[in-house]
């Protein structure tokens, strides 16, 4: 187990988010991700996918105080678990939690097995279905930017301070203080304990389950459930690695063909966005 020097975190105050999409543009600019009008990053239809590492989803929440539904925007991205299931599922160590708490993906190490996608309780890692040599993608918590003391790109551009970067313990303290003294908030900090705690923390005035958050993930770190024996068997890993490299080449080819087919099908349908991939239709939850 690695020693974490200073665990950093981002506190998201859902009550302050105005859905401006500055964060999602910053993420695309900084990470050089494709802009695609058919896959919006803000609004009711916004979803995470291989080019949207973050998405600001609008939820219309019924409230007893107002006849009309309230709009709440929820910025989604990888939660950067303190004990990431994705990383422990990855035998080739393409996903690693770094010293400041970011769960970082190293594409050169990835063999394309996509175990991480299955392991992640929040359905975060996405696959580049449309590419010839697809990789897994997800929010990196801007690990190279934060390495020089800067905030993640999305945090640094947020005009309302809905996002705040800092030490996890300090942010938790601040959040606790806020939800306990300000009646606007529900008395809960999402990410404090979920799956053993995450580096992205959320506070809100609306119960989290009404905002598409997964609230049934428990507080036990998920890696303890996964087959992490691979970690201790590097020799086996090499063998596995070679086998899976071959396997991944095969899968990549197959996927290319599948996605080609899908693209063909999509052209026939008008609702192409919805049927892009099975992965993306069921990720309404964080």
């Amino acid at each position, binding site marked *: 187990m690695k020693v974490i020097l200073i665990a950093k975190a981002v506190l998201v105050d859902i009550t302050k988010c105005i859905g401006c999409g500055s964060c999602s543009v*910053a993420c*695309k600019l900084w990470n050089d*991700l494709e802009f695609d009008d058919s896959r919006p990053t803000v609004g009711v239809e916004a979803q995470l996918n291989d080019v949207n590492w973050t998405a600001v989803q609008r939820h219309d929440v019924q409230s007893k105080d107002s006849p009309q539904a309230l709009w709440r925007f929820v910025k989604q991205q990888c939660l950067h678990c303190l004990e990431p299931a994705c990383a422990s599922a990855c035998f080739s*160590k393409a996903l690693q939690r770094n010293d400041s708490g970011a769960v970082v993906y190293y594409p*050169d190490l990835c063999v394309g097995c996509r175990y991480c996608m299955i392991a992640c309780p929040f359905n975060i890692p996405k696959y580049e279905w449309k590419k010839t040599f697809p990789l897994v993608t997800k929010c990196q918590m801007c690990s190279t930017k934060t390495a020089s003391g800067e905030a993640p790109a999305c945090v640094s551009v947020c005009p309302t301070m809905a996002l705040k970067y800092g030490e996890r313990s300090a942010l938790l303290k601040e959040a606790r203080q806020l939800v306990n003294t300000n009646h606007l908030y529900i008395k809960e900090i999402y990410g404090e304990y979920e799956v053993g705690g995450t580096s992205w923390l959320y506070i809100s005035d609306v119960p989290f389950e009404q905002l598409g958050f997964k609230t049934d993930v428990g507080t036990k770190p998920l890696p303890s459930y996964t087959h992490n024996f691979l970690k201790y068997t590097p020799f086996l890993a090499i063998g596995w690695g070679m086998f899976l490299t071959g396997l991944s080449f095969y899968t990549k080819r197959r996927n290319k063909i599948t996605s080609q087919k899908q693209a063909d099908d999509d052209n026939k349908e008008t609702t192409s966005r919805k049927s892009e991939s099975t992965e993306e239709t069921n990720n309404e939850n964080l």
Partner: protein
Amino acid sequence: MNSQDKKPGFLSRRNFFKLIGGTGVAGAAAITAGCSKAPAGGTGWLPQQYHTASHWPVQVKGRVPIDISNPSIARDDRKCILCGQCIEVCKNTQTVFGYYDLPLKNDIICTHCGQCAMWCPTAAITERDDVNKVVKALDDKNTFVVVQTAPATRIALGEEFGLSLGSNVEGRQVAALKKLGFDAVFDTGFTADLTIMEEASELIKRLKEKTTLPQFTSCCPGWVKFCEYYYPDFIPHLSTAKSPQQMLGTLTKTYYAEIKGINPNNIISVAIMPCTAKKFEAQRPEMATNRNLRDVDIVLTTREIARLIKMRGLDITTLEEAQYDNLLGESSGAGMIFAATGGVTEAAVRTAHYLATNEPPPEPLLSFTAVRGLKGVKEASIEIPGLGHLNVAVCHGLKNARIILDKLRSGEASWDFIEVMACDGGCIGGGGQPRTALPPSDKVRTSRIAGIYNIDKKDRTRLSYENEEIQLVYKNFLVRPLSDIAEELLHTHYSDRSEHLITKKNYSLNEGDSNS
């Protein structure tokens, strides 16, 4: 696609070894060592201000929220560089962004003024592009497509064709529109005169009855929505007169259709405006008088009509001047100066003087300098025989409106008539006007304003009530200002929008920098 791509290919021996050789050796080394190469991401760029240690504040950051259903403006994310200029103008010039408390309720607060589009350096924010709708209407042989042009477009459209600031292309604009295939070309200046007839009559009525004074102008839809959001208590003070754009739309589908024997269902009414908020105004539910037909169907900004003209290969500078069509095509100088801040007030006062005294206004009212120019808040006091002392205030830029309204609310000041234009300089500086240096400068505004007052000085009558087509429309159709039919067709109502936001209570406006 050839058939080879369709079936899973077999892994050749060569490729297999290449892969194992690549990922296998390097990868396995990395796997066992637990080290790695470059992490994903971080290969792009961000503006400089965002590269600073996280504990320092960033001065200019982020961007305004724009709802996907905003009828006036739209943004192309690909072009947004997160420069923060849109927030700068929306917050500090318009006092819209940041003047509501969070959380949001159920609206992205926007007055549709389009100033953010003027300030956006990359034109990521633009008007919502409706050019294709007009192209479609013009192509449809079964429709009668009517177009109107606002006073302010004629002194700005030329800029899009290389003419100097403030050039008047009124006749050439009409010619271009006729060449594009519009069936009739009308002047919104005509209904500006009509607005003055109604609004001045309304003012005199309020002054005589001493009710709900001051009266606010209501021809700027950005200002109207601002009032509905932030100052709903003043809604009764808004003149009920529709804006010139909407009046012209209404008359097209009633008065004009009747005289010409055209089925109003077959009329498409297009408006060329300096303004993005006019797109919003045209689709307000209140703006459908005649048998649920929209008064105005499509609104194009000056920029959009310039694009359409260019698309068709027409060079406006070389066109022979043409005339507006009859019935809704004549306008006075008073109608023209609607385009500049202070113009509506000046026009209204000229006609109010006549309506109250039956005498033409004296010379000073024909050059009412106190309300002209780019000062943020202008005040004047005039004497109209029979009506007494009239205190007027004129402002442009919504921050200046806030200054006036807050004084009014607190009882610090009182006026009888208040003109508000959402955009700096008035409609000549509207959010749909040709793009100029960023941010828009007073030099541009001054030149355009000069262009407008030149028109007022020159050719025509300078008094709305002397406009012959105005006299005709009252004689043959509307009877007189504020008649039942005028009330029905030319007046409207407003809706309180304050329930869609939590209005900020405490803010301080720095009056000093409220526009030069």
